[in-house]
């Protein structure tokens, strides 16, 4: 089985990379872009039957820094 983990900076945490991407979009004329948040996607290949709780532990212990990041698990 496969799962995908989306890691994003928490709301309220400043995202300098997202701000730079927004600025670059504006410079290209994409004035409709009003905000950009940049995160990361981690794809996991797992033993069949791995529980979502177990993947949550992976996120808590390593994949996300929960001081500044939130995560969302998607089972594929």
């Amino acid at each position, binding site marked *: 089985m496969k799962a995908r983990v989306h890691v994003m900076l928490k709301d309220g*945490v*400043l995202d*300098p*990379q997202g701000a730079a991407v927004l600025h670059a979009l504006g410079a290209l004329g994409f004035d409709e872009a009003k905000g950009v948040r940049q995160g990361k996607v981690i794809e996991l290949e797992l033993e069949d039957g791995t529980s979502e709780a177990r993947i949550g532990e992976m996120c808590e*212990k390593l*994949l996300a*820094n929960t*001081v*500044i990041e939130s995560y969302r698990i998607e089972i594929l």
Partner: protein
Amino acid sequence: MKAAVIVFPGSNCDRDLAVALRDAGFDVSMVWHKDTGLPNGVDLVGLPGGFSFGDYLRCGAIAARSPIVGAVAEHARRGGHVLGICNGFQILTETGLLPGALMRNRDLKYICRTVPLIVQNATSDFTARYRDRQPIDLPIAHHDGNYSADPATLDRLRGEGRVAFTYAVNPNGSQNDIAGVLSENGRVLGMMPHPERAADPSLGGTDGRALFRSLAGCLAHA
């Protein structure tokens, strides 16, 4: 007086740190990240600067889960001293031994230059040889040194005198200009500036020397 400097793949300030500690009187051993225990009788653990594990995932994230770090955390829990510089500070926040996180610099640039700092707490075991509010100059060299913590944590750090150093001119966007923070018991210090790169006149500065001498003074009497 014994110190252990932890070496990760990608550490690049480990030997500089060892030189500065030896100069202050420490007996220093280098400890590989795959070791599971510290040498007997270690008083101080140094986590050096560098790019451990290529900064993959997040700076310090993978190093923080390496075998030796369990022993470092145990050392800290027993009241032992730990000094994390630059990548070492990132590792300390990733392990949770220090609060907050170090994010990408405000201007998204790697910054390598000597910057003015202010000693905010001159009573800790790491800073006793400085004067309160002393202005000092130390080099910084980082891409992710933008200290971030929630408002309650920032208030607590300030209220408890746990901000050891601030930037006189904020180079990286750090909240409250924070350059270095202490743990609750004052025995774990994480800082982005490099005192070990300013501990010898031939390297252009000696403002970092007092930090190692403070530690030596404190631990010699322990």
